[in-house]
């Protein structure tokens, strides 16, 4: 008995013998369905279209339903038609039971009056056509049916189904498109290429005259259940009917678009424009919870607003005059002849879309102040913007030079412009809205412009890409803002990215972190060449990039930096992270948490002792049976009279020790200091000595301790540094400092638990 296939494609089908099928895929399907050993489906009949090359095979598919109540009326055996229009094209699959539920998710939309096919795959047909075989397709149909029976096809965590049948035309919404508001828009094409997308923008942003435009209006409907928008209209009459079923009076909505004064020349221009209708419908899920909205657009470039207004009976035209009709006189036959084409609607690029597509929908978005918009900074900031972290102030005093284009995010048209302003403008162009501001200014100088300083102090997070020691130290010492500072820079050889985080609360400051960074290089054998610049003599700041770094590598570092910034938005941890990129492209990561330093304010000097030094000294003291000691290494800032003691070398093997004295040996000391200076490029050097007092003894310096201190101070004086002695006793860690013949001491007491 022939099956009713009307409404599948608009064409009519006649039954044929299976041997007469010309499509290889359908012939294979028939073979499969005819196998007695296969119970997934059974053959019913075969068809060919009378009007076009389409062929169809109807099978009964077996769905393995259990006894649990089905949410939707899917039955154990469902007849489906598999319809193909050409050789090896993936068939469309239509359920053809007359009362098969039409409002299930994942049924493809079709024109009004035509049946809906199953949306079986989450990829376009052409992307999986090479995988198609009838067994795969039938099993997929069976899976679709079973899942749909129990309402499990659409996961609760999936966005609601806004599926729209593919269209040849696309409409791009503006980034700030407000689906909840009805506004007037203009729509236009940027190029004359066929099928070029249509751009929507608010009326106030209309492009120059001469560019073809569409009269556009955005209509908001009441909500409906997702999957229930089952039909696409093919003409104006169906459009009005479909939305009428959703409670929208489109005639009235179109009437609102009509200008009030139809004699006005501008108004007449408007109504002679092609009509583009934009309609947003809020969607609810099966539990009637609001989940999403769907925006549809309909267009006919040959149909003007005036044509539509006339067929709706809103206006009449005669003798060159256009006038509103007091009583609507719709021409329903004319409406049926006025075709409309659905458009694919694409959201504009907004920060929230950027976050969603980056997988950062829930990520915090603090306002950022970024300092230094060079190679690393410009690319990292643009990465952040594309990830939805776009509200930022940008500060840099440099201009874009031709050679910068090797790695800078700017294009060639920006040569000569301020780096900060360029990057700010690029971000604004990305989202077509003012989100970023560039300040041409330098950080760390007294005459920093107030707006830049204001931006810095009001930002919720400060990112320093400047690789400027001056800027870094100014930021570390500044009390003008409370937001945490993170610094990112690339090592001199361009093989590693370094991140230094103060953490929320700024418990650790830049100076200590920098000192800990150098100590990390000294103590980690994987980082011994971190600051090396092969073939170059390098003096001064390790952040002075005078080496070649390919853009490919800088892009990797900019990506790592951007991701790390997002990951540490809410971190309170003071830390250092180093990503090292090796020749094979592998990235190894070293990280260190920086515990608070013990701080000693001793006269003009501040001495900060790292927790690792404290731990090393206390551990070496052990039970205090005998004294022990060694060399202190660390960093210094003479302009701020600050010493950072970050490494405590253990007792040389030729040292002599007893319960009442410690004579520090010399074996290996020179080599250790030399290596530390080499690895850290002299940022870590000799600062003083440490030793322990035996059990039961406090840390007060003895006379021989003070003699030692004097000896140290004499040797440090040419370096403009004080003598420093660290003594560990039962009462804690005591720092004794001698500067210009004045001895000052301070105690960091042992923590009692």
């Amino acid at each position, binding site marked *: 008995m022939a099956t009713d296939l009307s409404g599948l494609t608009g064409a009519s089908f006649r039954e044929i013998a299976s041997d007469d099928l010309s499509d290889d895929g359908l012939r294979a399907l028939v073979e499969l369905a005819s*196998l*007695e*050993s*296969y*119970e*997934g489906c059974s053959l019913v009949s075969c068809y060919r279209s009378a009007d076009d090359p389409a062929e169809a095979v109807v099978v009964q598919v*077996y769905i*393995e*339903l*259990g*006894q*649990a109540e089905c949410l939707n009326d899917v039955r*154990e055996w469902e007849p489906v038609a598999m319809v193909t229009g050409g050789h090896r094209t993936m068939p469309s699959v239509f359920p053809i039971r007359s009362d098969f539920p039409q409002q299930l998710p994942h049924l493809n939309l079709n024109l009004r009056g035509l049946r809906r096919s199953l949306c079986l795959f989450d990829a376009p047909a052409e992307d999986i056509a090479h995988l198609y075989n009838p*067994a795969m397709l039938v*099993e997929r149909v*069976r899976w679709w049916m079973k899942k749909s029976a*129990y309402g499990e096809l659409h996961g609760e965590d999936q966005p609601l189904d806004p599926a729209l049948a593919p269209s040849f035309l696309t409409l791009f919404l503006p980034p700030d498109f407000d689906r909840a508001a009805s506004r007037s828009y203009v729509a236009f094409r940027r190029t004359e290429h066929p099928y070029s997308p249509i751009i929507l923008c608010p009326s106030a942003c209309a492009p120059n005259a001469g560019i073809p435009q569409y009269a556009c209006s955005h209509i908001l409907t009441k909500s409906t259940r997702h999957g229930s928008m089952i039909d696409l209209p093919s003409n104006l009459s169906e459009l009005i009917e479909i939305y009428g079923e959703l409670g929208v009076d489109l005639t009235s909505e179109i009437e609102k678009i009509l200008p009030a004064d139809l004699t006005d020349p501008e108004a007449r221009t408007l109504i002679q424009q092609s009509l583009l209708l934009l309609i947003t419908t809020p969607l609810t899920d099966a539990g009637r919870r609001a989940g999403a909205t769907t925006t549809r657009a309909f267009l006919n470039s040959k149909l003007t607003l005036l044509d539509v207004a006339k067929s709706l009976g809103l206006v009449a035209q005669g003798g060159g005059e256009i006038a509103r009709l007091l009583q609507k006189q719709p021409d329903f036959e004319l409406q049926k002849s006025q075709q409309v084409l659905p458009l694919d609607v694409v959201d504009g690029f907004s920060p929230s879309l950027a976050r969603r597509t980056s997988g950062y929908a829930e990520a915090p978005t603090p306002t950022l102040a970024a300092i230094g918009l060079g190679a690393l900074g410009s690319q990292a900031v643009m990465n952040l913007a594309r990830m939805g972290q776009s509200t930022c102030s940008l500060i840099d005093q440099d201009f874009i030079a031709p050679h910068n284009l090797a790695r800078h995010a700017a294009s060639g048209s920006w040569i000569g412009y301020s780096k900060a302003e360029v990057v700010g403008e690029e971000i604004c162009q990305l989202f077509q809205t003012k989100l970023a501001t560039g300040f041409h200014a330098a950080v760390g100088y007294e005459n920093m412009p107030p707006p830049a300083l204001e931006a810095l102090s009001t930002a919720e997070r400060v990112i320093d890409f400047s690789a400027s020691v001056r800027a870094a130290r100014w930021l570390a010492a500044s009390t003008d803002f409370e937001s945490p500072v993170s610094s990112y820079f690339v090592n001199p050889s361009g093989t590693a990215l370094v991140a230094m985080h103060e953490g929320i609360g700024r418990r650790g400051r830049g100076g200590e972190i920098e000192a800990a960074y150098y100590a990390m290089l000294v103590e980690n054998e994987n980082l011994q060449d971190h600051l090396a610049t092969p073939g170059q003599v390098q003096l001064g700041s390790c952040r002075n990039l005078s080496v070649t770094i390919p853009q490919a590598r800088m892009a990797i570092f900019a990506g790592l930096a951007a991701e790390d910034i997002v990951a540490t938005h809410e971190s309170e941890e003071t830390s250092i992270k180093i990503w090292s990129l090796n020749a094979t492209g592998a990235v190894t990561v070293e990280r260190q948490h920086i515990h608070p330093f013990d701080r000693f304010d001793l006269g003009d000097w501040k001495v900060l002792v790292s927790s690792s030094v404290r731990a090393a000294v206390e551990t070496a003291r052990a039970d205090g049976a005998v004294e022990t000691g060694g060399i202190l290494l660390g960093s210094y800032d003479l302009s701020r009279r600050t010493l950072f003691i970050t490494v405590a070398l253990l007792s040389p093997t030729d040292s002599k020790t007893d319960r009442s004295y410690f004579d520090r040996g010399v074996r290996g000391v020179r080599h250790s200091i030399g290596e530390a200076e080499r690895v850290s490029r002299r940022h870590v050097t000799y600062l003083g000595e440490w030793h322990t007092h035996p059990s039961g003894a406090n840390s007060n310096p003895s006379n021989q301790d003070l003699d030692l201190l004097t000896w140290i101070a004499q040797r440090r004086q040419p370096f403009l540094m004080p003598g420093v002695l660290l003594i560990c006793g039962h009462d804690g860690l005591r720092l004794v400092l001698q500067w210009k013949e004045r001895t000052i001491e301070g105690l960091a007491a042992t923590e009692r638990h």
Partner: protein
Amino acid sequence: MLVDFADMADTGDDSDKRCDLTSLLSEDFEEAGVEEYRIVAFSHLDTDHCKRSSEYFWLDHAKKYQGEGRKKIRTLWVPAAAITEEGVAGDARAIRQEARHRLRKGEGIVVFSRPARLRDWLEENGLSVEDRQDCIVDAGKRVPGLTIAQDAVEAFAHSPHATRSDENGIEDRNGDSLVFQMRFREGSYDTDVLFAADVKHEVLAEIVDITKHHENDNRLHWNIYKLPHHCSYLSIGPNKGTRKTEPTEQIRWLCEDQGEKNGYVVSSSWPIPSEGSEADDDQPPHRQAANYYREDVVKREHMLVTMEHPNNSEPKPIEIEIGSKGASKKALGVPASGIAGDEVAPRAGHGY
């Protein structure tokens, strides 16, 4: 878990369409990657429920039943008669001896019985009921060794049951066979499978009455009903009927009220004979019984007959999957990635 083992096929007869059970189960066992059957239940010791089991299983009680390739049993389920009955031979005797051996040892066995029924035998073997109460499950109780919480499955014993045992000193096999309900939990859905061995309608009626008396109706609920006695009319009512067997009230309640609308009944039997055919005789399966099940109990296509599935000419095992939506029969022959992994491939080789 295995319920009964009877390799009935005549391997010398090419026209015998019954499966090579030993090979099928061996392949299944290997694929499962287990070391032993966790449970093997022998519903009773008729030949068509235990044939060649002494060749397939590793039996602890005698070395001649041990060796490579034999499958071990962790726990054996048997009815009381499997312990006490005398005069059995062959495979039935082997199973009896194994059951007795395990009961003496006090491990690896659950005997479905009123405990007192086993007293005499236990005392003869120097044991008391109390010594072996952990190995005995009475009707109306959950079978030890399986819990929903840990295993997502439990079993409830219906028979052998007291009424039967008390009134009839003659140990009628079918009457003293295992009737139990397995309950599987997947997600939040429970799927019940009722196993009724070869019991007749009178026994089923007793079970129904007792169960209702104790308000344990849900213990006779089923998604799958493994039909008793190979689709015999005697498991429905006393009279075969001309076209359809009429059920007793208890059977009607059991089949029509306790079964899921879209459930399955499974008849382990020859194809249902058509009217007037040679097989349309007194031996089950009876077409009159089949008509009752197909017309009044489940949808026609949900009555599954082992020797008819998927067709009479080439029957294959029926596979039913129990999942979070209940029980569904798996479609046969679903292609698996184009690799015929579930078939024995033809020999490859140089050939010389």
